[in-house]
């Protein structure tokens, strides 16, 4: 407080104590010298002559509770003493703001309402340190704030703030969520289109009884398996139903895994193990040669049509657009196969694989030179390959007839 302000104070106002009324209507007596460290209280005393008695106590703003007033007065008491060094003051300030976030927020608000700028600066800096580097979810948890933004507002990416890995991670998670939502929508559309295509194909079959359609899209993905296996890997779509918060906690290692850090080290080992397991399970699956799809028996025979269809789509094995994952029901796979028949089929498969591997380079060269035409392949029951008039027509949904 300046000397001019002190000069204005009348002798009758110069009292050792002032009366202050806090937000809960409780009145307490405080040393005037300390209380006047707050500009708001100082103004009330000088300009209005308030606080001289209990009956005309200075009404403090709503934000100032008794607990907060006590903290503020402690701060003022320490900083009022003239002989302290900057180091002492700094040390005190550091300890002073080591309180829980909720109280720190209250203290900031109370100090601001009392216009106590040094304390506002101090608490604001402490809060800024808490906020810095946190995700929106973490900030919400710290300050107990409502999660009132809509999904669209939340999923709206903070575009190109790629300098911060945390935001990049969040954007990736949000993108994944958005992709899942889109996939669900697309799946619904595919089902409708698929039914329409099936009806269309059924109508066409009634005209040409011998021909059955199998579009480019309906040939399943080979998944880089060796040609000897000649099996089709069927994968179910895994949709992550977890919320963004769960995903974040999983990423941050809060999922109860004590080896959270070590997992990345053994990534290659784990991958190798998984691949071995997969290949062994695929060997078992290769026993199931006979598949029944929509009432038609499709056997893995060494027919020319099948050989061409297998090799034709190998170059596109990486491309998801040309190899959608076809989902089969468990009922489609016939487990009960006669052992003798099974042995015969196995022999045929091995024989076919041998032939296929022997002339693979020539066929690959032939494929590359032919420009890798993607045409709809039609199979007849006697195993001959025919090209249909609407060979370039793309069926939007993998339809197996």
């Amino acid at each position, binding site marked *: 407080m300046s000397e001019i302000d002190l000069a204005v104070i009348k002798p009758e106002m110069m009292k050792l104590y002032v009366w202050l009324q806090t937000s809960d209507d409780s009145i307490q007596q405080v040393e005037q010298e300390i209380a006047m460290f707050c500009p708001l209280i100082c103004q009330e005393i000088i300009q209005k002559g308030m606080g001289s008695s209990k009956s005309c106590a200075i009404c403090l703003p709503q934000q100032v509770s008794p607990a907060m007033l006590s903290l503020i007065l402690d701060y003022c008491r320490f900083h009022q003493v003239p002989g302290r060094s900057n180091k002492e003051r700094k040390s005190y300030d550091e300890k002073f703001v080591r309180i829980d976030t909720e109280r720190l927020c209250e203290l900031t608000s109370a100090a601001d309402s009392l216009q106590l700028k040094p304390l506002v600066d101090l608490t604001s800096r402490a809060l800024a340190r808490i*906020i810095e580097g946190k995700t*929106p979810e973490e900030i919400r948890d710290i300050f107990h704030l*409502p*999660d009132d*933004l809509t999904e669209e507002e939340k999923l709206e990416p903070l*575009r*190109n*703030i790629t300098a911060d890995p945390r935001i990049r991670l969040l954007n990736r998670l949000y993108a994944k969520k958005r992709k899942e939502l889109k996939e669900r929508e697309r799946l619904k559309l595919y089902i409708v289109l698929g039914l329409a295509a099936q009806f269309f194909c059924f109508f066409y079959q009634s005209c040409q009884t011998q021909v059955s359609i199998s579009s480019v899209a309906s040939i399943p993905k080979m998944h880089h398996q060796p040609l000897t296996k000649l099996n089709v890997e069927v994968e179910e779509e895994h949709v992550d139903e977890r919320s963004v918060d769960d995903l974040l906690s999983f990423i941050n290692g809060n999922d109860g895994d004590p080896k959270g850090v070590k997992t990345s080290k053994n990534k290659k080992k784990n991958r190798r193990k998984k691949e071995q397991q997969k290949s062994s399970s695929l060997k078992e699956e290769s026993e199931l040669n006979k598949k029944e799809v929509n009432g038609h028996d499709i056997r893995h025979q060494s027919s020319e049509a099948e050989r061409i269809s297998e090799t034709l789509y190998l170059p596109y094995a990486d491309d998801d657009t040309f190899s959608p994952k076809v989902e089969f029901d468990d009922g489609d796979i016939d487990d009960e196969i006669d052992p003798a028949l099974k042995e015969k089929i196995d022999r045929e498969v091995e024989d076919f694989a041998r032939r296929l591997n022997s002339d693979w380079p020539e066929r690959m060269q032939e494929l590359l030179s032919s420009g890798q035409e993607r045409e709809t392949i039609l199979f007849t029951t006697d195993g001959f390959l025919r090209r249909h008039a609407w060979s370039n027509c793309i069926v939007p949904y993998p339809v197996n007839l």
Partner: protein
Amino acid sequence: MQILSLVDDQTVITASGVCRGWRDAIYFGLARLSLSWCSKSMNNLVLSLVPKFVKLQTLILRQDKPQLEDNAVETIAKCCHELQILDLSKSFKLTDHSLYELALGCRDLTKLNISGCSAFSDNALAYLASFCRKLKVLNLCGCVRAASDTALQAIGQYCNQLQSLNLGWCDNVGDVGVTTLAYGCPDLRIVDLCGCVRITDDSVIALATRCPHLRSLGLYYCKNITDRAMYSLAHSKVNNRMWGSVKGGNDEDGLRTLNISQCTALTPSAVQAVCDSFPSLHTCSGRHSLIMSGCLNLTSVHCACAVHAHRAFTTFPHPAH
């Protein structure tokens, strides 16, 4: 908002996604934003963020590699009508379209940094000057096409509050432009003419006589400057001191920084006269404000305190200290 003013700009943007209260407080309360930390796709970031921060007064878009394009500046001009400080330095991709948009949308600009924006033309800069009449600080360093006599005449005519102008390496600038500027902007305090090889004594004389508040003058590599310019600077101090006594000006007024490096035509006596006239000009180490590197014939020039240091009988320090 006080808390958010203490955190970095990335945290501010993150905080806007916490809840509606915070989002609205930030969108309508944020006055200063810097996106200089963004090393990739700053353009997209400006396009997505700037329309939300409608109360922006300061926007720093300094770049190491050029990212900003005209559509981003157009967005700024259309959304941030209260903008006062804008830094677009090193935006090589920007064209005149950006300046035209800024002229129409951000008329309250007081500080504009377009250093290194080499694609701007003098017509566009003149157009901007005619609308943004509150400009006080203008950095045109390296804007070779934009900074011409035509543009400077427009600035002198319209931007009468201008206090700082950087024309570094704008070698199209001549005496006509600088003289008009000196007459039109009497409040000029900082003028950097480094590398403006075409200017002569006339420019310096105009600045010395017409800009009484001149504090810093950069004449690096202005090889046409002679003693005549130096004596006019020294003499301007006498005139300004007379005006100062009437207006109550203090003795610390006058040149504090003068860069005459590579001005090889100057003689020691003329430079010493300037040094004696302005006590704030120092040649002594640690307080180097009279820069004369490359002028081998000026080694004898010393400030008053350097002379005092050699005198053993000097009891009192120089008033400049």
